[in-house]
């Protein structure tokens, strides 16, 4: 192969600016979507275990819909179809917003991931032995206190690996948002390639960015898991 690499090219303007913008957008989008998804996912996970049939039905419907439609299709629906459903005034306001692609991506990623997190919350909480509830209730703790002090802290520790892996999934899924025009890492690589015909350098840099970020998340989560581990629990129960 007689291809001459030109790595310094990436550091020249405007390429470098695109790289930085891409990394910033990817990280911002992933973190925000993960935060929203976590809150919404916990809520939906909770209503799926509620005593009310209606609430359970709503929760289950949500999870089944958002988990089973491919993310790319969901992004297109939010981007192309959702604004059409808005009342005229709202639609005009929406279209005038700065960064519509970013917000659309945020909504799409958050709602999609919330369904997956809700599912994990449910399986995390149902993995808690029933005796833990009985023990807590028998000491006079109320249902809310039992969840607050016993069940959630316990389930949370059990679920750290799953929640961390959701973050990595969001992070990688965020690449799909280039299709609706978000200038995230992969979008930046595409732009650089279009202007310089240096696709190999651009996509290598993008891959490296994903790998570095993933590695730091894995290291951080490993640390968190260790810090919050339940002493003596490994291999028991």
């Amino acid at each position, binding site marked *: 192969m007689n291809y001459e690499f030109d790595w310094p090219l990436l550091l020249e303007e405007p390429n470098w600016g695109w790289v930085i913008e891409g990394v910033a957008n990817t990280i911002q989008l992933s973190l925000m979507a993960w935060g929203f998804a976590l809150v919404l996912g916990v809520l939906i996970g909770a209503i799926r275990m509620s005593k009310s049939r209606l609430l359970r039905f709503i929760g289950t419907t949500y999870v089944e819909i958002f988990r089973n439609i491919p993310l790319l299709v969901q992004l297109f629906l939010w981007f192309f179809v959702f604004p059409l459903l808005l009342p005229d005034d709202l639609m005009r306001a929406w279209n005038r917003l700065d960064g519509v692609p970013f917000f659309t991506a945020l909504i799409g990623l958050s709602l999609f991931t919330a369904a997956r997190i809700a599912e994990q919350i449910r399986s995390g909480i149902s993995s808690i032995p029933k005796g833990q509830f009985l*023990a*807590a*209730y028998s*000491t*006079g703790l109320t249902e809310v*206190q039992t969840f607050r*002090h016993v069940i959630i802290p*316990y389930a949370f520790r059990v679920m750290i690996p799953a929640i961390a892996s959701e973050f990595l999934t969001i992070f990688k899924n965020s690449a799909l948002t280039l299709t609706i025009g978000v200038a995230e890492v992969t979008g930046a690589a595409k732009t650089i390639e279009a202007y310089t015909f240096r696709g190999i350098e651009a996509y290598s840099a993008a891959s490296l960015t994903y790998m570095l970020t993933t590695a730091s998340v894995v290291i951080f989560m490993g640390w968190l898991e260790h810090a919050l581990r*339940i002493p003596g629990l490994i291999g028991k129960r």
Partner: protein
Amino acid sequence: MTLPLVQINNLSLRYGDFVALDDVSIDFMPGTCVVICGPSGSGKSSLLRCVNRLENFDKGDVIFDGQSLKAAQNISKIRSNIGMVFQHFELYPHLSVMNNITLAPRYVNGVNRDEAEAKAHKLLERVGILDQAKKYPNELSGGQQQRAAIARALALEPKLMLFDEPTSALDPEMISEVLQVMRDLARNGMTMLVVTHEMGFARDVADEVVFMDKGKVIERNESGGFFDNPQSDRAKEFIDRVLQKI
């Protein structure tokens, strides 16, 4: 005249179509230690769980210390007066032994942390595992875990203690350390309902023995009489079987 601490009146409990408790009526006097025995599946655990309304019974009622549990609005408050000990300990694995014990006093009774810890300190001393206070449940032996669980149940100064097969999950060499703690409790006048297959404990420590089968109370007797002179054939069979095993 002393009133019973626990009065169970025509209590029935079903799981779906299955009748787990069938019209049970029985009283327990304060300060007595009663062993409940019977074949597996006879409804012993179900009965205990009705006494603090961890099960919602279908018919009948339980009167604890003069209050009807069926009508009770504040069941949590009533439960805090009834300690419960489980076969599998059910300590909270993410909390230290100390925090396992102080959780309910702090959040149910609003006791401040220092006071709750001072109390826990005394209880741990009483059950002989003061040196384990900072450890987590899964770092303890089974016998130590069960003693910690007893301390947790005692932390709210209950009027009644329920034990559901407290030694069944223990290695044989740890059974006696737990029974010893229970024996001391009984000697100090705690009212106790104990589901157990430990016939030595029933004979030596319990005041009375209740024999259950198929969701009914078949027989009740003071403990000496139960072993020497069982009234029903089913109780006879049961005694022969458990004594043979030992």
